[in-house]
């Protein structure tokens, strides 16, 4: 049940939400649309669902042109950020809605709804109204409701955005397990890179109405195609014209070739990891990520002056294409790593 978006453009008045966007999603995959707010990711999702009409371009669902199809005929499940629970219906009736409007036999509806309520662990709440549920429970209900009519495609628009951090992590986990069980082609929109990396097998990074890069979480982290992807997916330090991941920076005690002098502002430890924040003589503040063990070996403290060296760095062209070659650095490929 693949999804293809081809050359989609959409404007709202003067605002360009999508500018010639194309995206392919394989059947059965779990894809994240990742980007800052206003990047067009929700609009793309709503166009796939048929809730918005593109100004130009085509949508294909399972190999069939769906561009002109009304949302109720696309057989998609859609989960909204603010749940869109039917407030006047019980949890059971909410979940049964998609089957009831299709006039399925009562016995079949009862069985399917029971099955889904078990899946989302809301059997005990079947006769409650949405107002009597917590945010996480409401979103699980919304998921069950979207899955009830057996959609070809499941679309989630910032599904965990309105929930607190713990419930969010729980639901994230749960969505991943659900996908392993149900195997419905899933696209979810998020602005949280950790969420995208954690859940999705494929991520499409969006910025300014365009798709910047599509790839697996590792691909995006290891070989970002643009400066934006480098800075948005995972943490990144800017050293002059180059970008360096926090774990790729090293501290040396003596000045060496290519190292910059910097003052240690703060040292923080999170369990196994440690983080050192530094202010270099010139340029933007730096963050180094390392293990606790390595930190102890280094024997550094706050207020100390050290030298920082990049084990690997990347440069990007400002206008797409291949990276610009800066003096003293060799670019191996587009967005490639330059090892020293």
């Amino acid at each position, binding site marked *: 049940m693949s999804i293809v978006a081809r050359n989609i453009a959409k404007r709202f008045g003067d605002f360009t939400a999508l500018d010639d966007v194309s995206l392919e999603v394989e059947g059965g995959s779990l894809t994240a649309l990742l980007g800052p707010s206003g990047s067009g990711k929700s609009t793309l999702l709503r166009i796939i669902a048929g809730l918005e009409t593109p100004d130009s371009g085509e949508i294909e669902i399972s190999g069939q042109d769906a561009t002109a199809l009304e949302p109720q005929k696309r057989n998609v499940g859609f989960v909204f950020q603010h749940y869109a629970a039917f407030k006047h219906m019980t949890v059971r009736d909410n979940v049964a809605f998609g089957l009831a*409007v299709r006039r399925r036999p009562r016995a079949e509806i009862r069985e399917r709804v029971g099955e889904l309520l078990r899946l989302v662990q809301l059997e005990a709440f079947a006769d409650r109204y949405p107002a009597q549920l917590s945010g996480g429970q409401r979103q699980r209900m919304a998921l069950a409701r*979207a899955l009830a009519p057996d959609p070809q495609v499941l679309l989630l628009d910032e599904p965990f955005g309105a929930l607190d951090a713990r419930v969010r992590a729980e639901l994230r986990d749960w969505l991943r397990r659900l996908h392993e069980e149900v195997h419905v082609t899933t696209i979810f929109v998020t602005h949280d890179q950790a969420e995208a990396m954690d859940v999705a097998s494929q991520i499409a990074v969006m910025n300014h109405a365009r798709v910047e890069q599509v790839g697996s979480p590792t691909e995006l982290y290891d070989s970002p195609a643009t400066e934006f992807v480098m800075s948005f997916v995972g943490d990144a330090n800017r050293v002059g014209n180059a970008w360096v991941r926090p774990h790729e920076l090293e501290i040396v005690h003596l000045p060496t070739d290519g190292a910059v002098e910097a003052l240690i502002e703060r040292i923080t430890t999170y369990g196994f990891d440690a983080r050192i924040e530094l202010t270099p003589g010139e340029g933007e503040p730096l963050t180094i990520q390392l293990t606790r063990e390595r930190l102890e070996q280094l024997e550094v403290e706050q207020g100390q002056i050290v030298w920082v060296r990049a084990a690997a760095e990347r440069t990007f062209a400002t206008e797409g294409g291949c990276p610009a070659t800066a003096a003293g650095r060799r670019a191996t490929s587009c967005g490639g790593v330059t090892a020293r």
Partner: protein
Amino acid sequence: MRKYLLRSTALGYLLIILIGPLAMMIWRTLGDLDGAWAAITSHNTLLAFKLTLYVTAIAVPINTVFGVVCGLVIVRSTLPGRGILNAFVDLPLALSPVVVGLSLVVLYGANGWFGFFDDHGIRILYAVPAIVLATVFVSLPFVAREVVPTLREIGDDQEQAARTLGASGWQTFWRITLPSIRWAVVYGVVLTAARCIGEFGAVLVVSGNVEGKTQTATLRVDDAYQFAYGNYAPAYGIALVLAAMAVLVLVAMTLVKPREEAT
């Protein structure tokens, strides 16, 4: 201290403006209960109440359907005329009922654009159709005015969810939109009914006010008062029944309101 002062001022104002006249009317009616009762149960009074209820029973459903459709057009559609529609819905609130009545007389009169009805023997003016038209006109905005803010408040998330779940536009309206705005509709219906029962000015101009034929309850009260010749009990009695109907409407409204707030 200031709180109590404010409260007693408000209560005192209500007492003088609202409760006072009503209490006086009840007092006078009780002074000649037999006379009042005779007037209330007289043949023509009963016919007048029957006509009022008949007109209300026609006007309320018409304006309920119109109000809901109108609210949907104003809030949900992207039609170019919806701003104008929104402004025009309020017209009956701004316009004096006498003006409404007169404009109907001009429109359906012998030289009016719709004068041909009369030429073909279909009586509109000075008959029940004109009373219905006038009442529909003056009670038009109430359902729409209740429905519009409620539709805005609930947003279209639920409707969109219903569409993605396979519901047609019609199914979405009956199963999602209408249940979501039901208390606003009920509230609007109650207000519309109250306005229909109480309408006087517009109906006075178009009805002809013929006893037992085109006389509504409010016109009956006015007649009883105009031709009282010192005996005001009939007028007070009939007016009291109208007031009782209004109180019933108020009670219905307060019964609806807390439930509306709960959802």
